[in-house]
């Protein structure tokens, strides 16, 4: 179905080019007003900030709402509705709240709003991906006075401030009882009635599939926002999104297709901004049982339970070639699950060298001198060039004897199949919502354990007690330096055990018309707050 859209895209694209050529002056015309129009590759599924923990949704609510704490472009914590926070003891935190802040409807902000918000998180109906992962550790909350909040956790929780930065604070006075039932309903946020926050922009209109319109909040506590009016237009097909930018219909687009970047960069009327993201693209291998669904020619054995085979796969892949040829240079070869320089990434790890001869040797040692047959699962519309990367991986594996076919499907189908363990090897990606190493470690390689919130996306079912122990210990360590060291050690253990094979870190790009600048964000959020008038 995507290709049907793509086909239409082609026509629109050509028209767009013609239009851009005809109306070169019109491009300049739109620069005068302080209105901003942004073309989005994927639109938020709802305006309820607690409904779906998904990048486009989180990017959208940042405009209307504020978190207690905010994350800057590099995902470092900054004061938000809390001006300061500190641990009182191992399990007690104190937050000093900002005074004099009002919601868009005039209701004042205080500690009761925060408590109400956190109590609502588990009570969102039909949430496809819940925010409860950020609130699980909270044992109790207490408003010492209207502007001092005490939060107690079950166990020491050094990540509490980071986790709270992912929660949008809603107004208790506005929301309580507004939807008839105990808790406000998602539909009332989508209609705008309850889309009332303290953020830099106010809700104006949301027509799903067509536009989200916001207007400036002149009373914003963080200073006057740049734009009078911000319009988000979802344009999911790459061609039309680029065409819309070239024709001046939109001022900014996110995720311009990598193959168009050279042309956009060469265009005098277009600026391109790129930045390393926190998203790693990885291969996960089924390491659970002795039989595995997608492998043939091993007499029923599961080759990936053997570390030598996992190492061989890693050595067989030329990550730099993938980055250069498939990603057009717009990615960075990965050595672990989070780029070096981010919290908990081990600076000592290096990208696996391409060594097909070594890979063949390891396969022979492991008892597979003639390789085996493998099906590699991949989504074809989720990550940048995902299907093409999977094909390139298949090419590399086939060359060392692992005859690989690619089973590509659309994201909803792929994730459903992956979650029911239909693949022996699959390609996927993980963006670290917290911007530090415990996020990918907990989600991707910790032994699955619902109670602890471990291994939620570990569909290779990798299990290593030593890694689990390090993560456990890190998550209880309040001291930043000590915690970072433990996370580095855990990362080192996983990578050297080839429990998961990182391929590359995505680089996210934004393209703007001339006269605008975009500050790239590692969390890949597309935000009007990141757009400034270039001087």
């Amino acid at each position, binding site marked *: 179905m995507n290709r049907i859209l793509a086909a239409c895209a082609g026509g629109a694209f050509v028209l767009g080019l013609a239009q851009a050529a005809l109306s070169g002056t019109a491009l300049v015309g739109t620069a005068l007003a302080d209105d901003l129009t942004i073309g989005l590759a994927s639109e938020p599924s709802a305006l309820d900030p607690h409904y779906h923990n998904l990048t486009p949704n989180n990017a959208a609510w940042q405009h209307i709402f504020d978190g207690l704490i905010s994350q800057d472009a590099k995902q470092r914590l900054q004061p938000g509705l809390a001006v300061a926070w500190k641990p009182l003891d191992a399990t007690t935190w104190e937050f000093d709240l900002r005074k004099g802040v009002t919601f868009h409807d005039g209701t004042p902000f205080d500690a009761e709003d925060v408590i109400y918000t956190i109590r609502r998180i588990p009570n969102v109906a039909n949430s496809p991906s819940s925010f409860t992962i950020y609130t699980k550790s909270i044992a109790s909350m207490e408003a010492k006075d209207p502007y001092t909040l005490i939060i107690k956790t079950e166990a020491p929780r050094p990540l509490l401030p980071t986790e709270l930065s992912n929660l949008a604070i809603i107004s208790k006075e506005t929301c309580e009882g507004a939807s008839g039932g105990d808790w406000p309903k998602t539909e009332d946020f989508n209609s705008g009635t309850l889309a009332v926050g303290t953020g830099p922009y106010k809700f104006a209109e949301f027509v799903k599939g067509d536009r989200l319109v916001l207007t400036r909040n002149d009373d914003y506590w963080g200073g006057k926002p740049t734009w009078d009016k911000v319009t988000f237009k979802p344009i999911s097909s790459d061609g039309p999104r680029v065409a819309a930018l070239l024709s001046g219909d939109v001022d900014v687009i996110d995720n311009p297709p990598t193959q168009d970047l050279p042309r956009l960069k060469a265009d005098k009327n277009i600026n391109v901004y790129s930045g390393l993201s926190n998203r790693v693209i990885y291969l996960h291998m089924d390491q659970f049982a002795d039989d595995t669904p997608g492998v043939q020619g091993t007499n029923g054995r599961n080759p990936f339970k053997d570390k030598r085979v996992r190492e061989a796969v890693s050595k067989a892949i030329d990550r730099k070639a993938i980055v250069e040829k498939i990603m057009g240079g717009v990615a960075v070869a990965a050595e672990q699950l989070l780029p070096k320089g981010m919290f908990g990434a081990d600076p000592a790890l290096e990208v696996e060298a391409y060594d097909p001869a070594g890979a063949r040797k390891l396969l022979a040692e492991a008892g597979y001198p003639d390789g085996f047959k493998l099906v590699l699962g991949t989504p074809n519309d989720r990550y940048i060039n995902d299907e093409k990367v999977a094909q390139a991986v298949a090419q590399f594996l*086939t*060359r060392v004897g692992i005859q690989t076919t690619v089973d590509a499907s659309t994201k909803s189908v792929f994730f459903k199949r992956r979650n029911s363990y239909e693949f022996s090897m699959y390609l996927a990606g993980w963006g670290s919502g917290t911007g530090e190493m415990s996020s990918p470690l907990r989600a991707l390689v910790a032994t699955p354990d619902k109670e602890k919130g471990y291994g939620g996306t570990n569909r290779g079912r990798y299990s290593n007690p030593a890694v689990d122990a390090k993560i456990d210990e890190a998550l209880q360590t309040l001291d930043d330096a000590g915690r970072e060291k433990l996370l580095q050690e855990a990362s080192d253990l996983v990578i050297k055990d080839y429990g998961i094979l990182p391929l590359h870190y995505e680089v996210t790009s934004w393209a703007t018309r001339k006269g605008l600048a975009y500050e790239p964000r590692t969390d890949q959020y597309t935000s009007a707050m990141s757009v400034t008038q270039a001087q």
Partner: protein
Amino acid sequence: MSEPDPGLSSGAVVAEPETLHAPPPRLSSPLARLALDFCASRPAVAGLAVILVVAVAAIFAPLIVPQNPYDLAQLDIMDGTLPPGSPSYAFGTYWLGTDVQGRDMLSAIVYGLRISLLVGSVSVAFALVIGSAVGLVAAFFGGGLDSLLMRIVDIQLSFPAILVALILLAIFGNGVDKVIIALVIVQWAYYARAVRGSALVERRKEYIDAAVCLGLGTRRVLFGHLLPNCLPPLIVIATVQVAHAVALEATLSFLGVGVPITEPSLGLLIANGFEYMMSGRYWISFFPGVALVVVIVAINLVGDRLRDLLNPRLQR
């Protein structure tokens, strides 16, 4: 009554010298006559020549192209998206360039044509057999069976072919065999309807009555007498449907529901190159597109000529 009327027979004798001039005596076989008539049209001959060349190339593809584009071990992504005429380390030159996975476009196109022709001819053959059988049975037996079969045909024809094929492939999954099955399912109804139409006309003719009166078996009457006389329209439809089937397969693959991505047919090659069109790498989409158009036009030229020749109303 059975005695010949002398007056009538003498009249026939008088007319005989005139009719003798019309058919040239050397063309006794109707097939030879058809061949000669066919060759009178140059576009049709050119079309046939193209089809023959493509068919030979497709059948002997592994022998004539430098690379097996379906063998991942022969591809090298470092050779990806090279423009036409670039040198290669493994063999001579990439005359038509390479795609992003390092596939030689010339080899990929020949292999793609192979899939196109295979899918086109096999699906048409199966659809032809199934459709003609249904049409003949409906026309011969008539009544309730006829109504039932023709309502099924009506229902089938009321859905757009592409929609039905998309749904079927969404259920079956990827693969050349599944594409063929889907195409047979969407195409058989055309034959059933056409055969029923001409069979109804033939059914009322005396030779069928004569065959039935002679006590010949139903099967022999159906396939020995009725079917051969319904063939001309069938041949025309089958030829045109091959072109339709090739186009439909390309469309399905373009939409990503046809063949697996590691074994691209023409439609998938076009889809893969499509996103590079605007970045100047036209060759990934362009050459497979040209190949597809040439093949479809050639088949249609041949089909059009056959229709002109086999349609009694158009006969000069």
